[in-house]
């Protein structure tokens, strides 16, 4: 009888607290529009870092730069995993290979495939056997496939999606699809997990579940999490550190308590649109 996890879902070799990702003076421009201006920040191993800010502050752009979808014009992104990698101009698949996985604001799953196949597609990045061996499905290729299938079960167990293993993704509720998408990112055995609004559009109960899964991934497996989220209640509850962006600039950084009391943050939110930052969370 085995209980709990047989695999770690974390591929990082760093110790908790060590710097895992460094962003130095990053600038991103789209024509004349500056999306990110001189943004610098550090992500530490095994922390939950939240990125907040009003709409259009550049949060998703920042994630896109990290995961290689956008190329910043200036600055550097250094990723540490045993040794330092400069990933500023790396391609998305190279970055994924290094262990940075992400989920998207709008669900990007294979809608007509089963949950299981979607999750397995996350593992494929680590396939070692070549095409011919895989086609024969014999020896090491078979062993690898079985191993990946087993690994995916740990993800299923973690996210409690046993009952929908065989379901087609398109037939699932929005909340469950979000969960599957996070599962696929986890199946890549990430060292950093980037989550773009994992709780958007969910009801209170689904949010609570999702927050618990995020905490489980972080606490049980030590996976570093960088997330963008609008629900301030959730952010204040689960994150270790918060980075606040406004008009493409970093205006504050610190623990939830520090950020909540920071006058610049309060002004940024209130000055623009009172409704985007609920006062009660700012205390």
């Amino acid at each position, binding site marked *: *009888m*085995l209980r*709990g996890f047989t695999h770690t879902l974390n591929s990082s070799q760093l110790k908790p607290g060590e710097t895992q990702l460094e962003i130095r003076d990053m600038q991103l421009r789209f024509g004349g529009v500056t999306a990110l201006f001189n943004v610098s920040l550090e992500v530490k191993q095994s922390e939950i870092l939240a990125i907040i800010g009003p709409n259009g502050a550049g949060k998703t752009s920042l994630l896109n730069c990290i995961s290689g979808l956008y190329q910043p014009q200036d600055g550097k992104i250094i990723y540490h995993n045993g040794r330092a990698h400069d990933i500023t101009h790396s391609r998305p698949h190279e970055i994924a290979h290094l262990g940075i996985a992400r989920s998207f604001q709008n669900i990007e799953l294979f809608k007509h495939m089963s949950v299981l196949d979607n999750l397995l597609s996350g593992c494929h990045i680590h396939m070692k056997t070549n095409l011919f061996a895989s086609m024969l499905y014999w020896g090491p290729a078979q062993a690898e496939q079985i191993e990946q299938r087993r690994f995916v*079960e740990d993800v299923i167990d973690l996210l409690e999606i046993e009952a929908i293993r065989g379901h087609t993704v398109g037939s699932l509720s929005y909340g469950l699809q979000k969960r599957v998408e996070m599962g696929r990112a986890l199946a890549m055995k990430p060292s950093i997990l980037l989550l773009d609004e994992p709780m958007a559009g969910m009801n209170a109960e689904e949010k609570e579940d999702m927050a618990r899964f995020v905490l489980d991934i972080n606490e049980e497996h030590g996976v570093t999490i960088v997330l963008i989220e609008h629900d301030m209640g959730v952010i204040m509850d689960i994150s270790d550190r918060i980075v606040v962006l406004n008009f493409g600039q970093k205006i504050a950084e610190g623990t939830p308590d520090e950020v909540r009391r920071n006058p610049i943050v309060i002004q940024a939110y209130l000055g623009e649109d009172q409704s985007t930052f609920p006062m009660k969370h700012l205390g």
Partner: protein
Amino acid sequence: MTAPVAETFPQFLLAHAQHTPNKIALRERNYGIWQALTWKQYLDHVKYFSLGLMSLNLTPDETIAIIGDNRPEWIIAELAAQAAGAKSIGMYQDGVVKEMIYIFNHADVSFIVVEDQEQVDKVLEMWGELKNVRKVIYYDPKGLRSYSEDFLMSFEDVQKAGREFEKTHPQLFEEKVAQGKASDIAILCTTSGTTGNPKLAMLSHASMLSMGKSLMSIDPMQPSDEFVSFLPLAWIGEQMMTLSCGLQIGFTVNFPEEPETVQHNIREIGPQAMFSPPRIWENMISRVQVKMEDSTWFKQKMYNWAMNVGYQMADARFKKVTPSPLLKLQSFFAEWLVFQEIKDHLGLRHLKRAYTGGAALGPDVFRFFHALGVNLKQIYGQTEINGIAVVHRDGDIKFQTVGTPIPGTEIKIAESGEILMQSPAVMTGYYRNEEATASSLIEGWLHTGDAGYFDEDGHLIVIDRAKDVMTLHDGTKFSPQFIENKLKFSPYVREAVVFGGDYPFVAAMINIDFPNVGKWAENRQIAYTTYTDLAQKGPVYDLVRKQVEMANTDLPPAARIKRFLLLHKELDADDAELTRTRKVRRNVISQRYADIISALYSQNSHLDVQTTITYQDGRTATLQTRLKIESLNGTS
């Protein structure tokens, strides 16, 4: 193969592990595949967990409590406690905190074995009020890494301690098991009492084993059979099948992956026997009916034709007449074309016998399953007599009865009409409750509190709880449960409470089946928001009205429902309105809904109710709802 000779559960386990060490004893679906445990492995798990408990000074007068889904660890913990000479008590996971604290303290619980973080959190919450508990042992470590309480221990660590303990105490486990006596208390079982604090029935190894033996003397099972354990192990019925029958015969017990995957897992295993309370069977019918409604025209035609044939066959079997050759031929095709498929989907294809117990099952449900060719039989019993005392025999099924007493059981009807039972399976008494014991065990006879009588064929007919039987205005005695079951046969009715004893006519309070009625409304473009909203829609009232009229046609005039209303909230076990096995708590309901009941017997056509809702963050809100009351004409 003859069953091994032993007199306690652990002795049976030891015997199986010696005779068939490599046969599969338990199977659990985990990580997506069925993982098997052989009898030898099963024994080792029990042995080291038991030694581990002994190293933590578990003494024979103590109890271990077990809370969790059906998993191998559940019964391993139970057998480990028994091997150490102690006893176990199973608890429902969704138990009310106050009740749980009462049981922990009242039953001298020294160890609590729980499944996961959720249950650990629950126990931690009540920790301050627990008197004798020394350790809380969990078997799913997920999420518990950061817990630092020193009384928390993992299942594996207890087993590790057991292995260490064996080095200094070799043979202790075997000696302890050999010392076990048939008269030792094996488990405490909470009775699903409909009032007050639960009573804990003490059940000995002898009584539990005798029950399994008697049942299997009429319905034999084989070591090669499969059984799926998916109902709460705290329930006596599940204990009887999984442990008493399972350990005596040595069949394989399968545990589902998660509560949500039960249906799928049953289908994969295809068990030979099943014992479930009525709600499981009622749910299956609802599922078939709803699925058929969504099906194609051709399939519906086929289904209706086959069901018609099936009902004729079932009725012939009930009446014990030989069906005509034509009917037999039709039945062959119906089975081949339709029923096999349905049974396969429900996981009932290999079923030799199916039992229902715990509460009364409506006759229509019986007919339905027999029409499908499922050998569904009623069991009657109580926790106090190990759950099973009276059962239908194969080929002798009358759905208004509960069957005939199993071998070794004597039954007589007291002058008051109460059913009295005597058998080797009667409990030893209630734990630390002399008073209750004295009032229910009198000179060896168990007073069941149920009213009933024998029919001309020696079948027992149970009317209802003696105190619930109502006398209608024309003097006839009638059981509200009987009428309620008639109503509940409809897929649109989830729960019903019938009144009429002290009133001039019969009236009903009904809960609609939210998913089924919701689907029905969607198909007819009726928009709704919540349960309350849906229940008060005019068309829904019309729908339910039809169901009530249908139920009325089979009832004697005096027992027909004259007025009914659809309740604005679902009756819930969390609100103490139902027991955990979904039996209606009549006294609670008649108090809480006194206004509604009196409105049912007034001239009014509606009633305004106010409900106070407490949100999760502590805020409260008051909701105003107008409940319609529907009168039925032409029934008097």
